[in-house]
């Protein structure tokens, strides 16, 4: 265990009062958290945050539930792959990251990693050891550039959280967080075989998004190194050991979030990412009307000429939930474009019936009028 600068782990239930510099850090963190919590960027689905906190409780050692800590997991509406921990135990995970994770065991790996950054006081150690609080923000801004506006918006939220998330801690501290987080998830009964898969997915994802690996991981050990380090732990200590994976539970809890994230990706224009996530949702639950509708929207944007496949998704959305207005409007416009006047009119009228105060009512009325 690597603990430097005379800062033993927190959360043992007998925490000594914080030293002055750490008190200052915590008070900065409190301000950042307040700003984040009021920013409107929090993903507000209580079922999702409740589930995440349940997993966090499962992996947290009993001693971290008392003392100075107040461990809590919150979600930020942001499609980038990211997560970060504040020194007081508050952990923020991006929707984009949660959409990539496949099961509860991988989620436990991530949460264990972030929790370790907090319990092992990595933030104050970095600030004390490297005196880089001023440098961090500069590095942060530079690193945020490849992530576009979402990256830049993120940097404006606070320095401390993103110091951990984007610029990263030293290799030794990241390795410690990997190792200790791994122990936490295994102790909680999860399959250790899933831990390296989290990073394998991230590696694939970075290639898929064409993001340069070093930018995302900053000074973190490179993804491949981390995968190898997990693999070596698996071979030396947990060879053949299984455990809980929790795919079904994860899917049940996260599907609404994955769909929301896909909708953001469609707006941004990251259509392939959105398609993949929506297909994933429908593979698990073909009855999800919203996923069908969004897949139709994806088709409409990707291949506007392919009316057959697009309309099929709109029809399936209507079949799954006839009271959802949007698929009726989308199908109505599509049918009108194809010359099916009566079919198009019927769908648009249904839309207005279901959404009498629709903001685009004037367009729909105009389309109806022109098609008569």
């Amino acid at each position, binding site marked *: 265990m690597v603990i430097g600068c005379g800062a033993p782990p927190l959360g043992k239930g007998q925490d000594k009062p914080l030293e002055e510099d750490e008190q200052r850090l915590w008070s900065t963190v409190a301000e950042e958290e307040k700003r984040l919590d009021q920013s*409107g960027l929090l993903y507000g689905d209580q079922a999702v945050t409740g589930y995440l906190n349940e997993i966090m409780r499962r992996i947290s050692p009993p001693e971290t539930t008392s003392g100075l800590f107040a461990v809590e997991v919150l979600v930020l509406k942001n499609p980038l792959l990211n997560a970060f921990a504040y020194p007081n135990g508050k952990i923020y995970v991006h929707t984009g990251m949660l959409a990539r994770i496949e099961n509860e065991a991988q989620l436990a790996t991530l949460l264990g990693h972030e929790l370790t950054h907090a319990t092992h006081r990595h933030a104050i150690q970095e600030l004390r050891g490297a005196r880089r609080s001023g440098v961090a923000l500069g590095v942060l801004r530079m690193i945020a550039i490849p992530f576009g*506006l*979402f990256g830049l*918006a993120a940097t404006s939220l606070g320095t401390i959280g993103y110091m951990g998330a984007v610029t990263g801690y030293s290799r030794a501290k990241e390795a410690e967080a990997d190792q200790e987080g791994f122990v936490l998830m295994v102790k909680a009964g999860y399959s250790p075989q899933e831990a390296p898969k989290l990073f394998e997915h991230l590696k694939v994802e970075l290639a898929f998004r064409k993001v340069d690996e070093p930018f995302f991981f900053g000074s973190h050990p490179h993804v491949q190194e981390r995968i190898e380090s997990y693999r070596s732990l698996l071979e030396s200590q947990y060879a053949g050991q299984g455990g809980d994976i929790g795919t079904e539970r994860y899917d049940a809890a996260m599907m609404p979030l994955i769909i929301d994230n896909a909708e*953001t990706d469609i*707006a*941004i224009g990251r259509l392939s990412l959105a398609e993949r996530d929506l297909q994933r949702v429908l593979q698990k639950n073909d009855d999800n009307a919203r996923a069908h509708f969004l897949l139709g929207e994806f088709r409409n944007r990707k291949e506007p000429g392919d009316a057959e496949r697009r309309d099929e998704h709109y029809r399936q959305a209507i079949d799954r939930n006839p009271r959802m207005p949007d698929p009726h409007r989308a199908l109505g416009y599509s049918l009108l474009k194809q010359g099916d006047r009566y079919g198009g009119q019927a769908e648009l009228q249904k839309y207005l019936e279901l959404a009498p105060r629709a*903001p685009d009512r*004037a*367009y729909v009325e105009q389309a109806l009028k022109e098609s008569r």
Partner: protein
Amino acid sequence: MTLVRILLALSLLSVAGCLPRPAKLAPVGAHEILPSDQIEVEWPLEWMTFRPTENDDNAKKEGIVLLLSRDGFSLQTIRLTKQAAGADFKYTQKKLSTGMLPQEVAELTLDNIRANPEVIDLSVIESAPATVLGAPGFKLRYTYRGKTGLTREVGMYGCLDRDMLVILSLDAPRRYYFEKDWPVLDKVKDSLRWQS
């Protein structure tokens, strides 16, 4: 007072990163027809205008032709932008194509707004047809929460005409300022015309 307003506007623009180089800021009270990039627009009395220089890359990327304000750009900003149909949007990776219907252009414009991570709690109030620059266009109204937590409202007119996306918008705090200045936006919109 006028000088104060101009200085305030300059400082606001500098903070927002819009003014890294000399640009033209016309004093309050000016009232003239602005020939600009093939578009003519008549702006109201007692509004100051800001025109970025041609080598302002930031403004160029967003296609900003003209900014107007009466009380300061954080209190109300009327913005006129003009971009080639194939140009990149600032936030979304999607592209316009000629021949798109006005509501499709409006939807894409909204996607670009939705993709802006600083626009929080976006709520569309109205998306309707409109005539802009004499061409079929769109009208959008939406509210959002800015970084300060204040609810703001945006009214927007736009059209895809002559292979150009032209957008005129008013962004103001929802309380008081938006309703007060909405008629001004309508007047400015009615004054828009192509030069030839």
